[in-house]
């Protein structure tokens, strides 16, 4: 393992993961008020109506695909009788649909952000950075897959990227595997690490507030008036018999 591999595939990923987890914990405690989707629907809704669902459903499908493709070892799918060929066809076709939806949706969203005045002026530097990293990750992922298949040399990432990714969580990173992957995949993975590091500090945090609880909670929420603790210096001092306005 060279020093460079060490840096790229061990040090950086762990740094990013620690930032990802620590960042979320810290932000949740410090900045609940800033934890929002910051929707821009008020400013513009025509493009958003198409682009946003396209992007979001696309990326949800893509994430689902990644979970199956990366977290589930190849040996498992094969043991239940799914051949590599069959897996590849399904993954590629579903993945392509999801990928194209995501990219088209994203392109429309970015176009909207740039051209619709109010949306553009509501875009922070933080958003811009996030968009670059997110878009780069997504586009790289799609392009690598598509190119590999078009040129007739589809790469079986389940032999390289997937075992490497899982090995991160056993704390014995398999850098040899990832080093065998084509360059496109490698860059995609590095971008993804960076994205994870950036995640807690951007509006991407809204992913973690997906309101699943809505399906089961009662419609009307009752809450008692909070007993706000008296602020330092304002604790009650007067005796009840001395009160007055």
């Amino acid at each position: 393992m060279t020093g460079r591999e060490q840096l790229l595939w061990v040090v950086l990923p762990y740094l990013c993961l620690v930032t990802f987890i620590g960042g979320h914990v810290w932000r949740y405690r410090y900045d609940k008020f800033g934890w929002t989707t910051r929707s821009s629907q008020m400013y513009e809704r025509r493009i958003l109506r198409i682009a946003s669902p396209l992007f979001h459903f696309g990326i949800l499908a893509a994430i689902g695909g990644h979970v199956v493709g990366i977290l589930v070892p190849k040996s498992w799918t094969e043991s239940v009788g799914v051949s590599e060929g069959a897996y590849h066809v399904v993954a590629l076709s579903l993945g392509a649909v999801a990928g194209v939806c995501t990219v088209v949706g994203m392109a429309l969203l970015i176009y909207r952000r740039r051209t619709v005045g109010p949306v553009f002026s509501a875009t922070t530097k933080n958003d811009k950075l996030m968009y670059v990293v997110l878009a780069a990750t997504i586009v790289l992922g799609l392009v690598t897959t598509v190119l590999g298949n078009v040129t007739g040399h589809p790469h079986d990432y389940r032999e390289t990227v997937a075992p490497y990714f899982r090995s991160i969580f056993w704390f014995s990173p398999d850098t040899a595997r990832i080093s065998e992957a084509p360059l496109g995949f490698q860059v995609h993975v590095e971008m993804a690490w960076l994205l994870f590091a950036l995640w807690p500090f951007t509006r991407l945090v809204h992913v973690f507030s997906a309101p699943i609880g809505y399906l089961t909670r009662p419609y009307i929420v009752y809450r008692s008036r909070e007993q706000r603790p008296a602020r330092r210096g304002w604790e009650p001092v007067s005796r009840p018999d001395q009160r007055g306005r």
Partner: protein
Amino acid sequence: MKVMAQMAMVMNLDKCIGCHTCSVTCKQAWTNRSGVEYVWFNNVETRPGQGYPRTYQDQERWKGGWTLNKRGRLALRAGGRVKKLLSIFSNPLMPGIDDYYEPWTYDYETLTNAPAQQHTPVARPKSLISGKDMKIAWSANWDDNLGGGPTLTADDPVLKSIGEKIVLDFEQTFMFYLPRICEHCLNPSCAASCPSGAIYKRSEDGIVLVDQDRCRGWRMCVTGCPYKKIYFNHRTGKAEKCTFCFPRVEVGIPTVCSETCVGRLRYIGIVLYDADRVLEAASTPDDKDLYAAQRSVLLDPDDPEVQRAAEEAGIPRDWVTAAQRSPVWALINRFEVALPLHPEYRTMPMVWYIPPLSPVVDSLSTSGHDAESSGNLFGAIDALRIPISYLAELFTAGDPKPVRDVLARLAAMRSFMRDVNLGREPDVGIADAVGMTPEDIEDMHRLLAIAKYEDRYVIPTVHVEGADPGVLAHRLEESATECSLDYDGGPGMGGSGPFGETSGGATPIAVENFHMLKQRQTGDTVVDPGDRSKRVNLLNWDGKGEAKDLLPPRAEKDEP
């Protein structure tokens, strides 16, 4: 029986002069910040008219509130939980900024730094959304006083649902003002629509609030509220709504809109209700029975059984006493003159209205009749079909009977009290005709016409373990006047958290207002006043503090 207390309001529409003082003072107190420029927790709309946001009452289009589904069960009109989650990425039923209006300011700087020229320089309107020059084409009360009618007025959804041809000529039509705040509903569809569960009803006083730390900006509440009284802060990405000025009512002071109301037409008090019966009442099959159903949920605070149940439910004694003295309860139940706004939305709204007699009185006096004689008034109430059905469409889901009864009671009070005031023997027959006693009429007159401050507002204070009202009052004063920035987790000198203006803890509104005003007076651009100082906003400048850039900088004098 599960007794709960509800802070409620009644507005006496006859006295509203449409001055918008309530809206303006509310705005100064609560929504004088960027991101909520277009937000009016309190707005006053001319009826007939489109309302704010325009045509919000058209539930065929906006799908707010509840409805009964095919099985007769209560369901959100915009769709259930699964449908809500599926449309979360783009809510098709949310009004856009153009349905409200594009907020603006004026470019006052040109007035002070324009070069010498033949024509007077003009301060041009600048959009507060995009910062660009804009043409002002709509606002929160564009059709005030039937302005723009009959073209604009004809789009009033209430007029449409009456389905009659109505003369909208100024001379022949009727008109009144409808001030609106959040209804603090017993069955709030805003809360039911919130995927995050951030909107809650306070169990002590029923005030409906948005938890700013839990709101994630999914925007479903905006659709859910049929009164469109939830607004989206486009800057922070969170929902905001009328708070019933809870820091004030907690210490026994009326809301800002009530306190400043020029017509002194607002009443605040507690009503007790049976929380177990709300769902059942809201599911009443016929829309026209909803007014009665809503009243039946309220409990009589003089009933010993209710008092016992209230005690079991932990409602303090003084709250029950306050409920007995509540002007709201009296107007709804004893005098039966207060009606809920749009009960057919099935949210059980808790801001009630005394419908205006003025259309009737006006039509009598313009035609030269004695508008204080009970015979004339009763006759006119029966003859004036259109204003009555309009009021019925607003307050009783189209049933004219309760509206006619209320107007008859108001008319009876009017002619009965004329005799009293002129020192004549009042006609007891008038009181009888509307099923009231002379004492009832005089009490109602005291409450409605004399309307003493202590009678209008009966607000019990909160009970806080270990804190007495003095401390609470102090805290209120502090939240209204203090500009110190050392509150816990505060961002310091008008700055912000590390992720831009909207991050960090929520800033107390008073602090935020202070900085907003200061920055806006001297801000560089129209839209983002966060930068360097340059612009002077004369509207906000009180003449006291420095307005640095009002005058060009003094030329540096060379020291001799």
